[in-house]
């Protein structure tokens, strides 16, 4: 392994490869910032460009784009309350709040530093711990995946402490909307009403764009003096103080680790990881009430987690040949085009290419943090842009992003309908996050519960058997009950 790492490092550290990595990161950040385009689209679009490159250089470009796109989504999440990808939804809660308070640069730099921590952990896992993590990911069967999706859904209880009932209602409606389409068990159409485009269900990316972008555009009509936020540049800085760094470092490291493990599980991904990590950070915090008010940990947790999940999502692909996410599937295509066969023999047959990619992933995190910090000063100017320019731009990019999901005009209609639903939800104080969580995680629950029951011939106990299920359900239960237990303990202390 160490000779492979040396060969990889020798292969990587050339001017061409470093420049390609920088280009990849910049392109990725730009594309990732646009709602709906996302990492998988960004990587897919650039695969043809890698034809003319050597395998190692081509893979480095795609990896740079992938990591950049995952971070890029946090920029619009923080500045405009519009998540670039579903994995950045949790970042909006504290990121946009902090930006509106007059600290957009601090919010952006927290996101990039936390992403750096998560990305480094993920890259190190890819480099040194691929095999054990891949073995662990194989132990996740349908029952375990259902348990993980239920864990993800349970965070609604922690997020919606003020109106838990409305949060649960929104999540249930989201889960129900996700049943539109073909049933996983028998392939029977549900709620399609003869509309052909509904047979494939509601695309959650188009729904997410509508739910989050549209209400922001509508809300901009009320912007005072035609700008999103007025802030004093004297107070805001891209540089975090040592106290602030010490404040976010433990959270970033722990949630980055959690994201790395979750990302390696096929089918899990950065979205679940970011929600779970946000909830985890909030539960562990001494001041959970600060989450949602612009706390730095509220930004660090989901960002380090979703970036941690990015590189580690390639672990099952590189070690076992199993693409665990849409982006990994695109990488599989790219590797095949370059004559590389992912799987157990990849590391022994092509060590120079593979280790070059893995070393490059580490360096890409450093490149990303430098570009992110340098760009934060310029990017934060978005908050000063007149809403008359910002609103139409967001609307146009929403159309581009939703159309790009399926190359189908129907998706723009979906975006518009969910946009109207989002506006109504904002007015009636229903949680959009819980709703989107339901749309994303609901199908995971149904699909995996159905599979688990098929495997066990209908025995429900199978869903709760196995050490991983027991651990996940225990964590879910603890997280659900912890606020109540904490309340009882604090009341007893007062008495």
């Amino acid at each position, binding site marked *: 392994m160490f000779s492979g790492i040396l060969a990889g490092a020798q292969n990587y550290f050339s001017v061409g490869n470093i420049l390609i990595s920088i280009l990849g990161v910049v392109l990725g950040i730009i594309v990732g910032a646009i709602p709906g385009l996302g990492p998988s689209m960004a990587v897919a*679009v650039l695969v043809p460009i890698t034809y003319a490159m050597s395998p190692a250089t081509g893979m480095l470009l795609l990896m740079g784009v992938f990591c950049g796109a995952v971070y890029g989504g946090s920029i619009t999440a923080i500045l405009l309350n519009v998540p670039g990808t579903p994995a950045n939804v949790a970042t909006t809660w504290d990121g946009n709040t902090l930006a509106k308070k007059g600290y957009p640069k601090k919010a952006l730099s927290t996101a990039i530093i936390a992403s750096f921590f998560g990305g480094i952990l993920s890259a190190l896992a890819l480099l040194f711990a691929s095999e054990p993590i891949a073995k662990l990911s194989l132990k996740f069967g349908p029952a375990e995946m259902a348990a993980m999706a239920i864990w993800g859904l349970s965070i609604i209880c922690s997020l919606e402490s003020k109106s838990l009932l409305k949060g649960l*209602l929104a999540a249930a409606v989201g889960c129900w909307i996700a*049943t539109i389409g073909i*049933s996983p068990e028998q392939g029977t159409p*549900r709620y399609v009403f003869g509309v052909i485009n509904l047979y494939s269900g509601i695309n959650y990316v188009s729904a997410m764009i509508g739910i989050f972008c549209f209400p922001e555009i509508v809300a901009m009509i009320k912007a005072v003096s035609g700008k999103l936020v007025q802030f004093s540049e004297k107070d805001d800085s891209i540089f975090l103080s040592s106290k602030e760094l010490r404040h976010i470092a433990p959270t970033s490291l722990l949630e980055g680790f959690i994201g790395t493990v979750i990302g390696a599980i096929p089918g899990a991904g950065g979205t679940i990881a970011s929600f779970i990590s946000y909830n985890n950070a909030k539960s562990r915090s001494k001041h959970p009430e600060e989450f949602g008010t612009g706390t730095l940990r509220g930004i660090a947790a989901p960002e380090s987690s979703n970036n941690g999940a990015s590189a580690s999502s390639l672990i099952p692909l590189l070690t076992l040949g199993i693409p665990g996410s849409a982006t990994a599937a695109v990488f599989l295509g790219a590797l095949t085009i370059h004559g590389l066969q992912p799987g157990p023999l990849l590391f022994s047959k092509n060590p120079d290419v593979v280790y070059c990619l893995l070393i490059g992933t580490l360096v890409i995190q450093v490149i990303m943090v430098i570009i992110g910090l340098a760009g934060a000063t310029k990017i934060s100017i978005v908050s000063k842009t007149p809403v008359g*320019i910002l*609103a139409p731009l967001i609307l*146009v990019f929403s159309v581009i992003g939703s159309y790009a999901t399926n190359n189908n*005009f129907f998706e723009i209609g979906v975006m*518009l309908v969910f946009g109207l639903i989002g506006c109504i939800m904002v007015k009636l104080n229903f949680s959009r996050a819980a709703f989107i969580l339901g749309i994303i995680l609901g199908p995971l629950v149904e699909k995996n519960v159905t599979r688990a029951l098929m495997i066990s011939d209908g025995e429900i106990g199978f869903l709760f058997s196995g050490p991983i299920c027991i651990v996940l359900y225990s964590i879910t239960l603890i997280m659900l009950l912890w606020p109540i237990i904490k309340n009882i303990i604090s009341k007893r202390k007062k008495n």
Partner: protein
Amino acid sequence: MENKQNCYASVFFIVASTVGILYTRTMSRSAAKYPLFLLWLILGFSIVLLLKSVIVLKKEKKSINTDNTSNSEKKLFTLKEFGVILIAIVYVVLLKLFGFVPASAVAFAGLAVYMGYRKWVPLVIITTVSILVIYFIFFKYLNLSYIRGIWF
């Protein structure tokens, strides 16, 4: 105000989920299991929300003197917000009729003016440059698909 809105919302969900349950029962049993479970959940949550809101409203009625909320707060959307929604709907219709570039140019300029941006020369320049940059970077260079219209 919020409790009244909660009442309306919960009545809507009660009616919708009841209709949904009746419709879902016509599906095959295996396909209907999970959606039925969710619809019953929605019905249950809505009934609890309705009861909770009604109880709180009754308590509030005793302590509220006069309702001083302005007319704009009572409506779901203000006229201005409705205008933005209308512009977005018109944009989508124009997309279907004329394609991305012309429709986006018109919608961009129209929404900017509606949002209060009145600097005409910068508006024309920004609209033209933005649409052209988007067109060349995303559709020509990156080969993303877009809705084609009469000209391009």
